[in-house]
Every structure is written in structure tokens, then in C-alpha cells.
């Protein structure tokens, strides 16, 4: 049985790349991603689990990386916003955000994209109501959400 320790060697897959690192037990996943791995696309908005700016994919499911310890991600597959356009070409969803002017300051955008991408993975043609339900955990203080919802619906082909 592993005795309790202040750090742990973890092994995880991040955006398809295998990562092995010793991390302190108290390190939040979002700090691990931003500070240890240098992937600053994942934002810290509220740091209280309300705003969703830190949303990443944990084994495909959207979760808030400020409410999880990095050691809890040992053995998991993590996806961040940097992994969306892996080959450099923006995804249909990202292009829809651009076309529909779905951001102003852009701070919430990585979280919005990750929540929306997870929705589209599970439900490729969501309706407006389904999009709003899926984005409930992501707060935007600029847009009033209308253009964000339009962009996600459009990325899904219009909710057909």
C-alpha cells in the first residue's frame, strides 16, 4: 500500500503527448498545466469553481481544472484548448467562434471552447437549448452569450 506523500510521480497523456513528472500533492491541475507545462491557454478566472475558464477534458469529459489536484489526473488523458487545432488549422467550432464574433475580451473563450467541443463530441447537432445547458458552467462577462450560443449551434450544423 502506498503511504501518504507530499508529492507523487504522475504519468498522463496531455493533448496526445505522454508526460511523466513528479508533482506536489497540493498542486492544482490548472497550475500544473499552466506553470509546469507552460500551456497558458487554460485560464484561471475565479479560482472558486464558478466561472469555467479553466475547463479541460478529463478522459473526454469537461471538468474544471481549478477544482482538481494534478495528482488526481495520474493515469488520465487530459485535453486542453491547445489540443483543439492540433494540426494548426482551426476546428469548425473555432472558425464558428470567429465568424459569429463569439468573443470580446477572450478570457472565457478557452473554457467555452472546451465545454462546447465536449458537447459536440457527444451530440454533434445540438439545439440552442442543449448548447445553453452545456455551457451553464462557463461564465462570460462581455458577450451576453448570444453570439457564443449561435457559434456553437452553427458549428453543429444548425441544430438539425
Amino acid at each position, binding site marked *: *500500500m*502506498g*503511504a*501518504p*506523500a*507530499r508529492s*507523487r510521480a504522475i504519468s498522463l497523456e496531455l493533448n496526445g503527448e505522454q508526460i511523466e513528472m513528479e508533482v*506536489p*500533492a*497540493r498542486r*492544482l491541475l490548472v497550475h500544473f498545466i499552466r506553470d509546469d507545462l507552460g500551456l497558458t491557454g487554460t485560464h484561471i478566472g475565479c*479560482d*472558486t*469553481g464558478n466561472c*469555467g475558464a479553466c*475547463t479541460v477534458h*478529463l478522459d473526454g*469529459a*469537461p*471538468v*474544471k481544472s*481549478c*477544482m*482538481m*489536484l494534478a*495528482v*488526481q489526473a*495520474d493515469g488520465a488523458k487530459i485535453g486542453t484548448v491547445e489540443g483543439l487545432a492540433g494540426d494548426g488549422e482551426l476546428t469548425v467550432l473555432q472558425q464558428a467562434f470567429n465568424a459569429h464574433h463569439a468573443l470580446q475580451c477572450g478570457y472565457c473563450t478557452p473554457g467555452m471552447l472546451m*465545454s462546447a467541443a*465536449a458537447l459536440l463530441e457527444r451530440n454533434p447537432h445540438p439545439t440552442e437549448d442543449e448548447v445553453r*445547458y*452545456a455551457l*451553464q*458552467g*462557463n461564465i462570460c462577462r462581455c458577450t451576453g452569450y448570444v453570439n457564443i450560443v449561435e457559434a456553437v449551434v452553427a458549428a453543429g450544423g444548425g441544430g438539425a
Partner: protein
Amino acid sequence: MLLREVEYARPATVEEAITLLGSYDGARPLAGGQTIVNVMKARAAAPDVLVDLGDLEDLRSIGFSSDGLLEIGAMVTYAQLVASSEVEVARPILAEVAATIADVQVRNRGTVGGNVCVSDPTNHLPPLLMALDATFTIRGASGERTVPAGEFFIGVYMTAVGEGELLTKIGVPPSSGAGDGFAGLTIGKHGTYIVNAAATISTDEARIALGCVGATPVRATAMEESLAGSDFSEESVRAAADGLGVSLDPPSDVHGSADFRRHLAEVSAVRAVLQAAMRRKGA
């Protein structure tokens, strides 16, 4: 936010988890972390050792016991409840309520066991599980015991789960024709409850439990008794709720005065009972 230094262990079995929890002072179980991580950020609590239950697959299943009880493992997430065919068949209210807890991300991590063991008076599941007459199985070094909801919830942030013990599963009787309802007022859609009420109406019994009006869920026993033999018309349910508010001693805070909560308790109980009555078999 930087957390205080903490030790971490990730046991592979329930037995190991119980041994760890019993061997270290200040050890706390870590389930989905959707409460405790924020509590640690705020330094409102500072466990010395976190025992991560993430690898305990035994606690992640939903199934039926040999006598037909719906058994929900303590590490089952809200998202699992929402998607479960067993829950849909046996007690769909659990999925219906779980689908309104917080948001997608929290539902993907937050667990049933965490929700009840935190015993926050504003949580969704404690009053619901009390109305459903659920039982709670607690395992410790000396064995296993099962307690009803009335004995499980002891106070704010306090349950019957003692030091060195772990909640392993929750048993919920299948509805067997009973109707279930849940109603209340939240701060914003799917936000924290100001008051909520859960009700179960079967042919021979009404069970009503209120949340956010005391340290633990409160049974509305007088209302239950006056509903015996009721026709469950809106008029008779309202009459049965009369006097419920004054029997309570709810807290006052920025979201509502004690009097407003007394009023909301009656309104919520009426709505939950009417919904439950409409859904019962033969209604």
C-alpha cells in the same frame, strides 16, 4: 490559489482506504473534490492527508441488491446518475434532480457520496434521500453498518461517518408505484437552494423532507399526517401545509430572512407533494 502542504495517498481497495483513514490524524477522504478542494483553497479546512478514492471501482457502480434495492456506490458521479438506466427504471427523480446540480463540469466530477458526506444544508441530495427513505452503508475497521437518513445526517458538515470510516453505498427503495417530487427556490437557475422540499407519495404514506431550513433535512411530519387519505387536490395539499412554516426555525442570511424561508418551505412542500401525487401510479 496555493493550497497548504498536504499528503496524498491513492489506495487501490476500500480496505486500504479505511486503514489509511484510520492510521493518520487529520486524514480525509477525497472523492470528486468539488467541495473539499475549494474548502482547502479558502483554508476553511486543512486536512493533513488526503485519501483519494478515485481508484475504488467498487464504489462507482449502480445496481440492485438481491432484494431489489437500488444501490448507488458512494463514488458514483451526478453525470452517472443522470445517464443510469437502473436509476431511470427504479427511481428517476434521482436523475432528474442530479441533472440540476451546478453545471456539466461539476456533474462530471461531483459524487453522490461527497454530496451527502459534506452535509451542507443547502445540498440537493440530503432532503431527497430522506424523502425516499434511503439507507447509508458505512464501513470501518470493525465492520459495516447501515443507517437511515434520519440517523445519517447529524449536523452542518457532520454525518454518522466517523473517523476511520467510509460511506460505501446508498440504498434506495424502488418507487413501486409511488410518485416523487422535488421543488424549491434557487439563487439563479441550477444554483444553490434557498429552500427545497422533496416528497414521496405512495398509496399508504407521504414522506416530505425540507432542505435549507435547519442543520439537517427536516421531516414535515405534521403535514405528512394530515395528508393521510388525502385526495391530493391543490386545495387539500395547501391546507395540509398550513402551519408548516411556523413549526420551523430556519436561518436568516443575505438570500432570505427566516420568515421568507418559512413561507418558501410551505410553497416548496406544496409543489413537491403535488408533483409527486401527479406522478404516482393510478393518479
